[in-house]
Structures are given as structure tokens and as C-alpha cells.
């Protein structure tokens, strides 16, 4: 079975990483010119008297030393209090509650489409290496990795606008629970854009693993025993090829959760990326800090899950 020592060490490492992330974000944010006062008052902050300024600094807690501020923030965050947005006045946790589901949905949808397409194309290419289909899929993968999301997104929006008079809806976002079709009409296209690079990555790994596994001795043995080709492919080749593919998919998914900024911006989706982007330009520290931490937590947790899963599918890794 999975060893507890490994598990505890792995979680301990993850926690240390997250503390490091918090400290790094905190320091980076404090080096950005401007502070909470200039962020909430804009240029009017220049007209404040020293007394007003001092009391505002006290109000925002920025008159205390950095270490004390960091401590206040960490203890607050642990008890669920992430602070209040400087620009909108809402609590940061309420902003996150509305933004997070959008990004998670987008990432899950993109990962599902990307994995399915990538696996299919990868097996297709890998089962006949060197043939036309193989070169075509490889070309697709290369292109898929080279087209930047913002180019693909811009092109998709332009084509949709021309052909279907579809424009990204900057108004209200329709949650999945309210209307499935309404929600999908907003999320599907950006998810497809994100799925392209995802599929290209999955396809590449699937192909190379498939080709490598198909040449293994045990596959020849299985074929020699007269197993049906489908069974050889699924039980012998794919099962073994799955391990690196699962790892890749997991890591990719982790990146996707924090890498939706551009697509959310293009398709006007009110997700975590967009929230982060606008709060960075507004110098809305509490929101930026919380967003980055949430993204890092998601990323670290996804990676941890991948590591665990890895040990479940591949018994060989449990021994070490």
C-alpha cells in the first residue's frame, strides 16, 4: 500500500511551498508602486493632510511593519477572512466565490475535450507511425502548440462574429445551474481554444508512449499468444502508456487553472484570471493576493493528486 511516510513528507513539502508562495506574493505586491490609499482614492490621495493619511494608513493596517502585516493576513486567511476589495468594497471571499466556479468549469471542460481529442489522435498516430495520418497529426500538434491562445481566441471571436453574429457577452454570466445551454454558449468556445494546446500536448505524449510500448517484448508475446488486437492495444499498450499521460494531463490541468487569464479576457468571462488581471491593474492588493494564493493552492493540490494517482496506477513506484 501507499506508505504514510511518503504521504506526510509530500504534504509537508506542499505546505512549505504554499507558505513560500504567500511570502513571495506579499513581497512582490509591496514593491509595486502605490498602496491601498492611492488604489482606493486615486489621484485625490495627493490632497490628503498628513493626519488623514496617517489615519487611513492605520485603517488599512499598512502603518505596521511588513512582517506584522503578513502575519495578520495569514491568520485571517486561515480563518476564512481574506479581506475586503479596495475598489469594489465587497469581501474578497465573495468575489472568489463567483469567479472560481467559472474558471474551474472552463478548465475542466477544456481538459476533457483536450484529453479526449489528444488520446484519440495520439493512438491514431502511434498505431501507424510514419504513415500519412501520423504526419498529419504530428503537424497538427506542432501547430496547436505554436498558435498562441490570444491569436486563436481573437480569430475564433472574429469568425464567430462574421458567421453567426456571436459576440462575447460582456453582460451577465449564466451559471451552469441556471441554464445549461446558456452557460455552454458562453463557455464552450473559450474552452475549445484552451483545449487545442492541451490536446496537442496529450497527443504528443500519447503517440511517443504508444510507439515505445508497442515495440516492447511483452506486446510481442501478447500478440504471439493470439490475443485480439483490440485487447493488446487496450490492456497491454495503453495501460502502460497511461502513466506518463496521466501525469502530463494532471500537470497541464494545474497550469490551466491559472492560465485562463488571456482567454477569459478575450471572451469576457468573469473568472479568476479576469478578476486577477483587473485587480492587478487596480492595485487591489487583497484581491490579487487571494487570487494568486487560490491558484497556487489549486496547482499544488492538483499536483499532489497526480502524484497519488501515479502511485495507484503504477504499483512499481510504491516500493521506492
Amino acid at each position, binding site marked *: 500500500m501507499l506508505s504514510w511516510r511518503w504521504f506526510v513528507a509530500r504534504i509537508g*513539502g506542499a505546505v*512549505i*511551498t*504554499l507558505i*513560500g*508562495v504567500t511570502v*513571495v*506574493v506579499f513581497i*512582490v*505586491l509591496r*514593491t*509595486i*508602486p502605490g498602496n491601498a490609499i492611492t488604489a482606493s482614492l486615486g489621484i485625490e490621495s495627493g490632497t490628503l493632510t498628513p493626519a488623514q493619511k496617517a489615519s487611513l494608513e492605520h485603517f488599512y493596517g499598512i502603518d505596521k511593519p511588513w512582517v506584522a502585516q503578513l502575519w495578520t493576513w495569514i491568520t485571517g486567511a486561515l480563518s476564512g477572512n481574506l479581506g475586503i476589495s479596495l475598489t469594489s468594497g465587497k469581501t474578497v471571499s465573495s468575489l472568489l466565490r463567483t469567479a472560481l466556479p467559472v474558471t474551474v468549469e472552463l478548465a475542466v471542460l477544456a481538459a476533457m475535450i483536450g484529453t479526449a481529442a489528444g488520446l484519440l489522435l495520439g493512438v491514431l498516430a502511434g498505431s501507424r507511425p510514419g504513415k500519412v495520418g501520423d504526419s498529419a497529426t504530428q503537424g497538427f500538434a*506542432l*501547430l496547436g*502548440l*505554436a*498558435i*498562441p*491562445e*490570444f*491569436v486563436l481566441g*481573437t*480569430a475564433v*471571436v*472574429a469568425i464567430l*462574429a*462574421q458567421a453567426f453574429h456571436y459576440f462575447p457577452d460582456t453582460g451577465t454570466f449564466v451559471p451552469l445551474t441556471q441554464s445549461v445551454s446558456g452557460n455552454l454558449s458562453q463557455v464552450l468556445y473559450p474552452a475549445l481554444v484552451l483545449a487545442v*494546446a*492541451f490536446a*496537442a*500536448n496529450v497527443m504528443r505524449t500519447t503517440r511517443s508512449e504508444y510507439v515505445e510500448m508497442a515495440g516492447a517484448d511483452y506486446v510481442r508475446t501478447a500478440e504471439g499468444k493470439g490475443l485480439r488486437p483490440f485487447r493488446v492495444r487496450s490492456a497491454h499498450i495503453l495501460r502502460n502508456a497511461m502513466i506518463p499521460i496521466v501525469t*502530463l494531463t494532471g*500537470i*497541464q490541468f*494545474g*497550469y490551466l*487553472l*491559472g*492560465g485562463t*487569464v*488571456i482567454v477569459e*479576457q478575450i471572451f469576457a468571462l468573469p473568472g479568476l484570471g479576469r478578476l*486577477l*488581471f483587473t485587480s*492587478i*491593474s487596480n492595485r487591489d492588493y487583497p484581491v*490579487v493576493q487571494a487570487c*494568486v494564493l487560490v*491558484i*497556487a493552492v489549486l*496547482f*499544488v493540490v492538483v499536483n499532489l493528486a497526480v502524484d497519488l494517482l501515479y502511485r495507484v496506477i503504477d504499483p512499481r513506484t510504491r516500493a521506492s
Partner: protein
Amino acid sequence: MSVLPVVTDPPAAAAAPPAVGDAGLIRRVWRDRNGAVALVVTGLLIVVALLGVTGLLPHDPIAQAPADRLQGPSGTYWFGTDQFGRDIAARVAVGVWTSLRVAVVSVAIAAFIGSILGISAGFFRGWLDQVVSRFVDILFAFPAILLALAVVSALGNGWQNTAIAIAVVYTPIFARVSRGPTLSVGASEYVKAQRVLGIPPWRILLRHILPNVSAPIVVQITLALSWAILTESSLSFLGLGTQPPTASLGLMVADARDTVATAWWTLTFPALAIIVAVIALNLLGDGLRSALDPRRSGQ
């Protein structure tokens, strides 16, 4: 952003890989069909960038000509004009220059600092390794584009700051790529023997570690260059990189959002420039990888 390129398959440490400084390396890349294409295209891109920055092209990239706005590609304007009547060919050339400059500077910084960190961590082990590895883990916990975004907003606009931001993102990758092979070479019998013989560490580093680690680093450099171009243009697209009126490929795509419905060329040419550059550098990386791989050198 997709997964960052990390070379997970460094050449076997014990077998001596072809040296990176070897003149035969380029020839070996050249012999590979994809490698040859990559070399030619990369060369062309450099020429285009130089043409752009020296102003040798017929039109000025910044001068506006309102009478000629949104003209299609023609003999006068090879790639057409944008909404201000500026020549897109000239702007693409300058954009390639902007991207390449940021990419080269950022990757140079990242490769230098990252490799030093990775090699010393792998060679000296102990607390240094612990600190470097933790630092790498922390930076890896941020998605690349997010980290670049945060650093750029901390530093402000300008190409130097964009380059620094991208360098911050790639430093941990170089640290990780160079640490692995250093560890395995450092643990090998012949390095142990040299230590026992009392040969100074710096000599072991130079004579044995560096030649073994340089292959994965060189491959990683070309891959990082292609991702740096993607990141630079993404940041410019978001308005955080190169600032107008300086031409940049990302900005051109952003501007094209308003005009592409009636003028396809405003989006097509800058987009193609990015895609071609990224593909060329990727293929070059692949070519270098197989040329530097001792297991394939017999082929």
C-alpha cells in the same frame, strides 16, 4: 499557457555526448530535414528583424498615412496597412525584432542564473540544494503567464522589464534541467575517484560536469526562446509589454480585433510571424536534441 518545456530526457551522463562547442553540431542539425528547415527559417527571422530595426524596408513602421488606411496587400504595401495607414510589413519586421530581443535577453539571463543555481545545487548538495530546490518549487507553483504578469506589473512597462519578468519565469526551469544531470554525473564513479585524488572541485566542474550538462541546457535554450516569444507577445496583447506606438506582434493582434472583420491581413501577418518563429525554434530544439543525444549519434 501550456506546460513549460522541460527536458526530461537528458543524454546518458556516462557516455560522452558530442560537445556543444563542436562545429559538427550545426552540420548534424543541418542533415536532419526538420533541423535544416528550422535553421533556414531562424536565419530568415533574424534577417527580417535586422531589416526592421535598421529601417531598410521601404515604409516607416510608425508613420501614419490616414489616406491609405486598411489597404489590402499590394506592391506598395506587401502586407497591407492597419487602421492608421501604417505599413504592416514594416511593423511585423520591427515586431519580430522586439520579440527576439526580449526573448534572447530573457533566456540569456535565465540560462545563466538558472544553470549556475542548478549546477551548484547538484554538485555541492546539502543546504544549498535544499534552498535552491525549494525556491524552484515555489516558482513552479505559479502558472508561467501569471508570474510574468505579476512581475511586469511590479516593475512597470518597457522591454527590459518584460525581459526580466520572463527571465524570472525561466530561471527555475534552467535550474531544474541542469541540476539533474549534475547530480548523476557527480555521483558517478569517475567523479568520486577524482575527488578522492584531491582534484579541486572547480576543475571537476569545468572538465566533467559542464560538458555533460551543457547538452540539455542548449536544447532548453532554444525551447525557452520559443516560449519567451509567446509570453512576450501575450503580455503585449494584454497591454503589459511593449507600449504603442512601438510595433510588437502581440499589440498588432490586439489592435486587429477591431479591424479583422473587414481587413483579414491585420491579424494574419503578425499572427503568422509569431507562429513561424515559435515552430522554427521548436524544431531547432528537436534537431539539437537528437544531434546531441549520444544514443542516436551512430545514426
